[in-house]
């Protein structure tokens, strides 16, 4: 009988700074090391600030063996994927979801193609994978549908300590001017339906509160054409104060949360949704369209919409912000949800989920 594996390494396409997947990889590594496993992170590209935390992909050959367990953070068309597919290691896939291709048609045909093939690649990994973990039940069901035999849920871990970092004074002063700030955090990509956010905000500003601002905090690099269309929409609807911040540093993000009054998410595809949790940490009432893993991420917190008519949503925003009892009820649900998030012992859960391959 072979001995239980002692080497559990992680492989990912990119270890980015301040990115939820990168943070999760680091948390997994800490817990695995604490449990006595040899555990390194191997990445194709590494943000300079994270360079000390990861090893280059080509060094993976040194640790690869049939006794090594590899936690592969699945991503589309990566060299890491090709490497691990043919390596002798025991494979555990961690799936953070792939956006359905149709969202990118008309805005980013190349990415639409990559997403389409990504989903096919996901199915190709199924027979090669011993265990597949989705970061939500929604993602786990997708894994099951793709043919994975053994699946589980490993939610993304929030580093709650990181949210007590001081906010950027400049960003704070920039938006803290007495206007009602409605916030969305996420990349400016079509599945997030930023256009619906703009329409809803236009309805809110025109019909309910002229002294308001929509803060759209997220990167748009690589999606300039979609971004151009969004700006065109802002001009066409003659909306004031729509702030596209572009990529924000951690302190700027903290400031965006600190100066905002409400978090609005009208996304049509979410595999998890870290900003939903972050908004709850910052005490913002959350209104979100119920799709994908949104309800699951919110864990009963916030307000979930079944439709998103701009004027109905705008009036609801106005009601949540203006009606103290409704606002208090929303905050109660969010407090319960946060307590449930805080109660999760990520280290124990990780080892429990990995138990089938670590025995």
């Amino acid at each position, binding site marked *: 009988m072979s001995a239980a594996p002692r080497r559990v390494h992680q492989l990912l396409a990119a270890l980015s700074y301040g990115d939820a997947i990168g943070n999760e990889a680091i948390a997994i590594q800490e817990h695995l090391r604490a449990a006595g496993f040899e555990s390194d992170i191997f990445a194709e590209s590494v943000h300079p600030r994270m360079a000390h935390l990861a090893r280059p992909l080509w060094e993976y050959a040194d640790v690869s063996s049939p006794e090594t367990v590899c936690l592969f953070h699945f991503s589309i068309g990566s060299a890491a994927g090709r490497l691990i597919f043919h390596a002798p290691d025991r494979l555990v896939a961690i799936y953070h979801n792939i956006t359905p291709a149709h969202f990118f048609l008309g805005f980013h045909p190349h990415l639409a193609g990559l997403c389409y093939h990504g989903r096919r690649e996901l199915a190709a990994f199924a027979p090669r994978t011993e265990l597949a973990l989705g970061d939500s039940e929604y993602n786990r069901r997708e894994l099951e549908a793709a043919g994975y035999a053994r699946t589980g849920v490993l939610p993304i871990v929030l580093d709650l300590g990181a949210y007590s970092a001081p906010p950027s004074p400049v960003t704070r002063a920039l938006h803290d001017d007495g206007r009602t700030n409605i916030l969305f955090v996420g990349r400016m990509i079509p599945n997030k339906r930023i256009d619906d956010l703009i329409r809803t905000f236009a*309805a809110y500003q025109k019909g309910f509160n002229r002294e308001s601002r929509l803060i759209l905090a997220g990167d748009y690099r690589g999606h300039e054409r979609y971004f151009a269309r969004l700006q065109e929409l802002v001009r066409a609807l003659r909306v004031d104060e729509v702030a596209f911040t572009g990529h924000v540093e951690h302190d700027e993000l903290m400031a965006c949360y600190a100066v905002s009054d409400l978090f609005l998410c009208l996304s049509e595809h979410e595999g998890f949704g870290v900003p939903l949790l972050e908004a709850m940490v910052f005490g913002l009432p959350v209104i979100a369209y119920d799709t994908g893993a949104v309800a699951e991420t919110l864990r009963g917190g916030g307000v979930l919409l079944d439709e998103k008519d701009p004027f109905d949503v705008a009036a609801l925003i106005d009601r949540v912000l203006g009606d103290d009892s409704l606002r208090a009820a929303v905050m109660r649900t969010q407090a319960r949800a946060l307590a449930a998030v805080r109660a999760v012992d990520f280290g124990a859960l990780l080892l429990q989920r990995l138990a089938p391959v670590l025995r």
Partner: protein
Amino acid sequence: MTFRIEDGSVDVEKVMRDVRERIAEKKRRGLLTDPEVREIAGHPLHPVLEPHDLKSSLLGEVLETPSRWNFAFDPEAIYRSSRGGAGRALEAVRRWLRPVQKLFWNPTPMIAALSRQAELNAAYAHLLHNLTLEVTRLSLEVQDLKHRALQMQARAEFQARRNKTLEEIVLEGRRPPAE
């Protein structure tokens, strides 16, 4: 539209009734007009056309049936008849009289000019097609560049506001404390 909230104290139906009543009231008071509502709710987000992906099947279709828009011209064309058996007899008579006809006028330059015109028509079809395609591509590229310019402008404005805020913060820090 309705919503879900996991708190027993909230009467969702009542909130939604109030929400709708509020919108209706704003409409009654003229604060929201139907065209405004339609414009906001229905303004589409047009997909982006990639100039280099632009293909046109017009030329192929035109070249497939040249007889519908061009004429085939050869030296025999002016003597042909389309009247079946009687036409064939007529053509024979015309051929027989051709040397006599040549005593009065010379059709060769006209035949040459019309043959050349038929070739030119085909060339114009190609040219017109290519020009239309290029103009469409260029207009898409111009639109794209305009968008980029607007993006840069928006970014520059945002940075200017950020710098202004930064200046104010610095000045605030240097201001002597109030007595």
